[in-house]
């Protein structure tokens, strides 16, 4: 915790802790929305076990007028809905932190006398009961938090109406009453608190979304027609998102019997011309491998979300890790081109999602969006996207009419060649239903028509294999490049490589280190495959001292760097306990490395 000490007071960090199954997350998100709507920046983090009830849940919320890139370890205000929450989070509390609790639930032995803390007892349950039911004690607590930090209550009413929009209107209204009771009580009974965040007037419009919502929104924007999935944490919420919008946006959603079906349906949907996607986590992806290869050899445009969690096997379903990078790059027998995109935050999730559909269509091959729990489950306030910049590029595709006006799709004899050999590896797709073109998708190796038996001669195999693999060259010209943050590597004390959601805490850490005079260069690899070897080699080449920060045991990005660049980094920082790096950890890690230098 020492690394963040001097950050106290610059922002508001709230944690709500309690037993699983009590709606802590949705309460927290409601609070988050109040602050965002007031123009402040938000990052949240929910932690929960893979249980419906029992076990400890907690919701962390960070609010600042400056941009925020991740959660942090420190907490200014703890709402402890049970005693366990105090015990588990005591270490995280800064000096003078407030602990809001209901004396009826939370025993005060052990921690109360601690001079460093500010206990704020509130009869949460009692107020909730008064408002209509003890289930609303979270809402009472939200009122209490706002009052404590002298933030206006009004926003909360609106936010509660949003939260309970799909319930009877009385529900929202009782909750508003509950919040008001908590607010009043604290305003009247608790002396001045040292943190008083202020809203920002006229702040630009933003969105408060998690990574999965961002992916779902991106897919909608891209014109998705078909989405199939089997629920799997942490990918299920994409299914929920898409299902919620099936009617208003006309998407066909299928909750399938298993992930085998989901991926195979997506290949079928793509054959029929729909923009099609499925998403899952590692275990479901395992069941999709074979059909992923089929998408590769049949040159199907498909988008596959792989939102990872710690493995192996069932692993730790509700926690986060970055240990499936190599798996998604090498999954499925045989060799075929694929694109793997790893968004670093919610804004990038949105952008890469719609771009993934264009890439899939342009390359006629699977595009994987590789996320993780940290990104998918947690919300950040992001700039309102520039909707006008979104494009739909379906690549070489004929959807309707007759094939005759498309001679580039035809062979010498005037027949349609689905897998016509071309310089860039892309043949023209003609959808079923177009006159004059009979297309055969095939999981076998095949000739230009698609016939499997004719795919067996050595020359045909070589030609089709090389044709497909040429797409990787084209892909290199189309995929998003790496992101760079902080100073240039030549000017940096340390140059750090990362990928995926780790970039958040790393950027945060870099800002903090900058304040202490340590210059950090960051390179976030975004397109993991085809790997940007030249850019990485340049970054490492320019750097004085290099490091990789990644959330796994074996160093999967590092392995790629070694393999693709024949270079290594000087240091690496790993985490594989299911938790995301905090900026504090990274700051400490970097300082340690620099101290040894």
């Amino acid at each position: 915790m020492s690394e963040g000490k001097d950050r106290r007071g610059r922002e508001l960090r709230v944690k709500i802790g309690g037993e699983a199954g009590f709606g802590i997350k949705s309460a927290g998100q409601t609070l988050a929305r109040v602050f965002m709507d007031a123009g402040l920046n938000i990052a949240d983090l929910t932690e929960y076990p893979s249980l419906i009830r029992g076990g400890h849940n907690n919701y962390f919320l960070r609010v600042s007028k400056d941009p925020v890139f991740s959660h942090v370890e420190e907490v200014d205000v703890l709402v402890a809905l049970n005693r366990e929450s105090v015990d588990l989070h005591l270490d995280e509390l800064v000096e003078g932190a407030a602990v809001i609790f209901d004396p009826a639930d939370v025993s005060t032995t052990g921690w109360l006398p601690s001079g460093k803390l500010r206990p704020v007892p509130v009869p949460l349950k009692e107020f909730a009961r008064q408002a209509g039911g003890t289930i609303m004690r979270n809402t009472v607590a939200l009122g209490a938090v706002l009052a404590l930090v002298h933030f206006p209550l009004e926003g909360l009413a609106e936010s509660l109406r949003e939260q309970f929009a799909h319930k009877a209107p009385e529900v929202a209204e009782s909750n508003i009453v509950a919040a008001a009771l908590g607010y009043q009580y604290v305003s009247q009974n608790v002396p001045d608190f040292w943190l008083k965040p202020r809203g920002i007037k006229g702040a630009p419009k933003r969105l408060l979304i998690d990574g999965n919502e961002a992916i779902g929104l991106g897919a909608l924007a891209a014109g998705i027609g078909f989405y199939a999935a089997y629920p799997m944490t942490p990918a299920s919420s994409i299914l929920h998102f898409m299902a919620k919008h099936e009617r208003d946006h006309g998407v066909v959603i299928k909750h399938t019997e298993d992930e085998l079906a989901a991926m195979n349906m997506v290949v079928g949907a793509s054959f029929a011309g729909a923009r099609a996607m499925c998403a899952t986590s590692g275990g479901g992806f395992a069941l999709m491998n074979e059909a992923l290869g089929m998408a590769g050899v049949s040159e199907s445009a498909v988008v596959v979300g792989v939102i990872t969690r710690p493995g192996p096997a069932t692993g730790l379903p509700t926690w986060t890790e970055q240990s499936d990078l190599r798996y998604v790059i090498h999954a499925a027998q045989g060799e075929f081109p694929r694109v793997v995109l790893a968004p670093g935050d919610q804004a990038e999730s949105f952008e890469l999602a719609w771009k993934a559909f264009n890439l899939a269509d342009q390359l006629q091959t699977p595009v994987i969006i590789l996320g993780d729990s940290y990104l998918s489950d947690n919300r950040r306030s992001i700039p309102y996207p520039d909707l006008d910049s979104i494009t739909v590029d379906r690549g070489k595709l004929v959807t309707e009419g007759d094939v005759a006006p498309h001679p580039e799709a035809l062979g010498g004899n005037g027949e349609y060649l689905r897998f016509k050999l071309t310089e860039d590896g892309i043949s023209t797709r003609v959808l079923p239903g177009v006159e004059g073109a009979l297309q055969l998708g095939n999981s076998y190796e095949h000739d230009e028509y698609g016939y499997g038996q004719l795919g067996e001669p050595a020359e045909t195999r070589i030609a089709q294999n090389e044709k497909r693999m040429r797409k990787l060259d084209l892909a290199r010209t189309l995929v998003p490049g790496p992101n760079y943050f902080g100073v240039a590597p030549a000017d940096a004390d340390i140059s750090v490589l990362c990928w995926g959601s780790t970039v958040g805490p790393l950027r945060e850490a870099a800002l903090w280190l900058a304040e202490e005079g340590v210059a950090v260069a960051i390179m976030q690899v975004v397109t993991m495959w085809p790997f940007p070897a030249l850019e990485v080699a340049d970054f490492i080449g320019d750097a004085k001292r290099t490091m990789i920060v990644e959330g796994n045991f074996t160093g999967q990005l590092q392995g790629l760097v070694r393999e693709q660049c024949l270079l290594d980094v000087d240091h690496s920082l790993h985490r594989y306990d299911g938790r995301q790096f905090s900026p504090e950890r990274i700051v400490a890690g970097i300082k340690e490395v620099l101290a040894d230098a």
Partner: protein
Amino acid sequence: MPKVADFETALTPTWCPGCGNHAMWRALKETLEELELPWTDFAMVWGIGCHGNGADFFRCQGFHSLHGRALPVATGIALSNPDLKVIVEMGDGDGYGIGGNHFIHSVRRNIDMTAIFHNNQIYGLTTGQASPTSDQFMKTPSTPGGVIEEPVNPVGVAVAQGATFVARGFAGDIPHLKELYKAAIQHEGFAVVDVFQPCVTWNKMNTFKWFRDRVYKLEELEGYDVTDRTMAFETSMKTFHELTCAPDECKVPIGIFYREEGAATYQDDLPQLKAPLYKLAEKPRDISKTLESYGG
């Protein structure tokens, strides 16, 4: 409208001479010709197996998918383009073995498509191992001591799972098979057509002759009611045959076991599926209203 000969590619079928697949293909081509289905209006999907090699000989729109996964690929097509009739061909290993889960779930969805099973009671393409419909005690390279499981009862399972059309044909009777194909393709809902397709190379027991000596037609059976699910179930339990049973001891019914008209198909319940879904991707979708609930 394509005629039988138009459905043929330049490739000569590689099925063994005398294989039941030849007859099944002929029946399907004739059916399509008679139904006057233009090429643009239907799509075939094949699994992997001898049956699936048909993809190379059959001139049409289609997808030669994975072993066991023809149904979900077909479902993806059917749920993305309501203008296409989808016809799926599967093997018995393919459709009832590795693909068995998709079979049950496709049945209960009542997806509007036709599912044809090439039931040769053997794994043809992988050189003669027992299939899930192999008769008990059959000796094969993977069951040298004889099969010790009950065969899959596709008719009974489909009927129990709420199927709206279940039929069984025999490759040795093309005119009858064509009637089944026609009824199945015209049926609105998921149509199961299991076809006894003798494999002359690996299955030396369930031969053309074996079936010719035993099959009888349900439509000729007095009092058989195709709308009676229980009757269909009971009859399905009689289709199990033993390798050794005499022709008059074990009769094998073919024909339509069960048919329910008018049940809603899966597609009927998807109001958003009025036009092919590729039309949704002609330009970026306007999501501004959707963004509102996220603060936008």
